[in-house]
């Protein structure tokens, strides 16, 4: 794990990606800082970080696009996957390397509020919260980028797909409120989710009965809940999508509220994508 981590960090700085990422991150934060704090004469540094989250979906792909795509392209994945290292360690090593570079950039931008603090009192709690939330949000997005990188051997496709997915996450709140809130729509949505789970089940186990059983249990449970209390299904789509929205949770951190549930949510989100990445790689070893 440490060896992969070191290798990735070195690769970031022998190829241009590491420098480019840091440059853009500091430059963009600097621009927001100049506009929101210096010109506006405001101590609200957390607004700067909120602004920067909008350009996340451009910055994160540059960090993650090469992680696996490049290995496959140069066939160096054969070295990694035939070495005694476990796949989990390889994936986590790469994730940590990207996250460490992101954290490094974030720490450098920490100089901006320090600079600001010389000229007045800052809302320290809110800024700390914003930094912490910013880091969690970034790490979650890196996990998404890592997962997409393992699906393709082309860095450009990897970057564009990551961009698209992160953009959808960014738009999630807007998408959510435009969804139909009727009970029927909710039931159709739920049915699609259940079918999707059943399909994934079938795809990984190749067992029709297990998949059918999952679907059946899902439908029965949904039907049972509907008969018991059909109010739950009011606006189900909107509630689900909003629950998935990474950005709306970030809002709490900016306001200085640190909920355990939000932290757990981000950590789980990243872990799920790391787990999926490991599985995609392991799948080649499955029958």
């Amino acid at each position, binding site marked *: 794990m440490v060896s992969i981590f070191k290798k990735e960090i070195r690769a970031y700085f022998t190829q241009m990606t590491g420098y480019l990422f840091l440059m853009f991150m500091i430059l963009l934060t600097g621009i927001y800082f100049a506009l929101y704090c210096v010109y506006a004469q405001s101590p609200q540094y957390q607004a700067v970080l909120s602004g920067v989250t909008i350009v996340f979906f451009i910055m994160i792909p540059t960090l993650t696009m090469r992680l696996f795509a490049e290995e496959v392209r140069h066939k*160096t994945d*054969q070295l990694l996957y035939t070495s005694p290292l476990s796949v989990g360690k390889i994936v986590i090593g790469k994730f940590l390397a990207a996250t460490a570079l992101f954290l490094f950039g974030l720490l450098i931008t920490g100089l901006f509020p320090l600079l600001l603090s010389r000229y007045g009192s800052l809302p320290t709690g809110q800024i700390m919260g914003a930094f912490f939330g910013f880091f969690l949000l970034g790490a979650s997005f890196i996990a998404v980028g890592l997962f997409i990188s393992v699906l393709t051997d082309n860095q450009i496709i990897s970057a564009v797909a990551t961009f698209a997915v992160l953009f959808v996450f960014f738009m999630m709140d807007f998408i959510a409120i435009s969804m139909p809130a009727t009970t029927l729509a909710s039931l159709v949505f739920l049915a699609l989710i259940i079918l999707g789970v059943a399909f994934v089940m079938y795809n990984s186990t190749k067992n029709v009965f297990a998949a059918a059983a999952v679907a059946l249990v899902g439908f029965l449970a949904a039907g049972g809940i509907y008969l018991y209390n059909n109010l739950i299904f009011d606006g189900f789509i909107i509630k689900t999508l909003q629950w998935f929205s990474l950005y709306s949770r970030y809002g709490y951190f900016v306001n200085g509220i640190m909920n355990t549930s939000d932290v757990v949510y981000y950590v789980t989100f990243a872990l799920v994508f790391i787990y999926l990445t490991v599985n995609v790689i392991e799948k080649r070893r499955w029958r």
Partner: protein
Amino acid sequence: MVVLIEVRNLSKTYGQHKALDCISFSVAAGEIVGFLGPNGAGKTTTMNIITGYIAATEGEVVINGADIVAEPEAAKSNIGYLPDTPPVYGDMRLDEYLDFVADIKNVKKSERPEMLSRIKESVRIEDMSKRLIKNLSRGYRQRVGLAQAMVGNPKVIIMDEPTIGLDPKQIIEMRDVVKKLGKKHTVILSSHIMQEVSAVCDRVMIINKGKIVASDTLEKLSAGLTSGRRMQARIKGGKEQIISAFKDAPIIKSLTADVSREPGTWDVVLSGDENIDIREAVFKCMAKNNLPILLMKSLDMTLEEIFLQITGGSAEEEK
């Protein structure tokens, strides 16, 4: 004899295409085994499965007692693999790269300098230590790939087409390296070039269309396909004279003399019974009749002929 690699009923299907069809074999410690087969025969697929890079559809691979699927880490620590494309990072310096490989193969820090310098010396890349790998030529990259496979002193070294893309001089050097490796490691290599396999391997496995069609030592493969020993001799003298002279030697079972490559000589193909050396008899017989022998060579089948005969034969069967 310790069996290091045990492959049982290995099959691999890509959609409708059956790349491997129920292959079984075992490799003992210290052997140099060559996989020989035309392009697309299943050599690379077999190697990728043995090294744990891809999964088989059916069957199992056990390496030094560890199943590659159930205990991948234990099994993989016994293997060094040089795939068809050397898995090198272009933007690393050679030393950095080998150090990284030693790192992921769990080589102790204290053992590294000695091991790496020994490996670099044996594949002759000492002078390249500080060079970026992307600036090395194809031949050097191939050697770096081999060096990578040797790191950690694995029991088994598997090489997929190790001499592809090398110039003739490098090919000969590579063969020497492989022979040297064979003294300390068990080696499996694949090739579609006959001379290579016949130059270095103890045992040859001929793979065609996903099946092992023959597996034996070169001599036995050759002997199994020819009946009796054949040899060719170039003899100075008239055709009639030569034929009548051989009538005195009952050990010669058949002869044909219908080629004349040098003026005044005839090329004669002679054969005797199996396991009987006819050379001496031929010499004495010709000497008695005062017919000088200018050239004499054994006509054992070359690997090339064996290969064509076996793969061609199985292709006909399928039709």
